[in-house]
């Protein structure tokens, strides 16, 4: 095509880089579509699968911090996930604390903290997700 052509959409001199970008982009989009397609085919539906892992316990001033990870190993996101922590001594409940996560996405993890008045190391601690809604 003529070099004098002013329209970038019809000049071939500059087209090489355009084609390189174009082909790389098309490959990326195709790869993405392939991945999503595979996800769509392999997902069988299901429910959130929540679990809690305690990762750290520290004392901050008057309160005891228990830092935890909430994991969702299920294929669906959970919304409004309430995590409750209970401290017990001799079978009696000492205190209850709870925190709410707006969302815990599928196959993902979020971290959170519960603050207790009593030292969780000297008592029995139970932390679990106590409920969720569909997003």
């Amino acid at each position, binding site marked *: 095509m003529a070099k004098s052509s002013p329209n970038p*959409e019809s000049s071939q001199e500059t087209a090489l880089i355009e084609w390189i970008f174009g082909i790389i*982009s098309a490959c990326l989009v195709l790869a993405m579509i392939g991945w999503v397609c595979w996800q769509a085919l392999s997902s069988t539906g299901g429910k959130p699968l929540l679990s809690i892992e305690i990762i750290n316990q520290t004392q901050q001033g008057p309160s005891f911090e228990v830092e935890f990870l909430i994991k969702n190993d299920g294929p669906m996101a959970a919304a409004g996930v309430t995590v409750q922590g209970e401290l017990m001594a001799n079978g009696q409940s000492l205190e209850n604390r709870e925190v709410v996560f707006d969302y815990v996405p*599928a*196959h*993902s993890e979020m971290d959170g903290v519960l603050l207790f008045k009593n030292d969780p190391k000297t008592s029995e601690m139970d932390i679990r997700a106590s409920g969720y809604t569909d*997003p």
Partner: protein
Amino acid sequence: MAQASSSNDTDRQSNSYLIGIGRGIGGALLFAIPMLMTMEMWSLGMFMDRTRLFILLIVTLPLLVVLAHRIGFERTLSWSDALRDACLAYGIGIFSSVIILTVFNQLSPDMSLDEIVGKIALQSVSAGMGALLGRSQLGNDSLEDDDDDDSPTGDVGYLDELFLMAIGALFLSLNIAPTDEMIVIAYKMTGWHALALVVVSVLAMHGFVYAVCFKGSHMLSPDMPWWHAFFRFTMVGYVLALLISFYTLWTFERVDGVSYTQVLYTVIVLGLPASIGAAAARLIL
């Protein structure tokens, strides 16, 4: 006599400069009001990661300079003028954000300085872009003598075109990425919905520029097959839109700890407005 006319000229010049600033404020309000009135933006300004905020603020400056170079307050030609205009627009963005946030009682003396600065800084990005866009979109061209004849609406290089698409995508995704709706939509979608959304985004993007012939549309020469422009512009633009969607989601801490697939779905969701923004930028800017 000559003195009188030259002072008249100065008056007119400073007048048109003030009008330019007024349009900048108008543009900042017009384009940033959705963000200024979004709850998530207030809380993000308060707690978002300061490194990411810093990166966003730094990235904004060169974008504003390039925008100013194309559509600045005074049709600037030199890069130093563009830098001056970009700083002015950023300043107008900060000014407008302070006014509006104060009126909304989102800034008060009992807040920490960090919170106040964070809230203003976050808003100033899109308000600054809005200030520049206001100059170009709200302007009454008859006031601008005849220098619009050589305004850069004609041919732009390929990389310039990509840059404009990136700015358009960034602007729209910055507006929408902070909202909870992005992740809620992504969480509710199945893979098939995501695939359909990819198709819709690409079609919207291509259609916006080529098919429906908006003002400033890029007409294809009849001897060129449609897929030439599709690969060279639409595909590249869509990937750019997705990358920028990811960047804004990362900036607003929407991807931390989230699985790859969920992140991808969220990016695809935000990719719809981003690709429309990218396509529109090619027409408008």
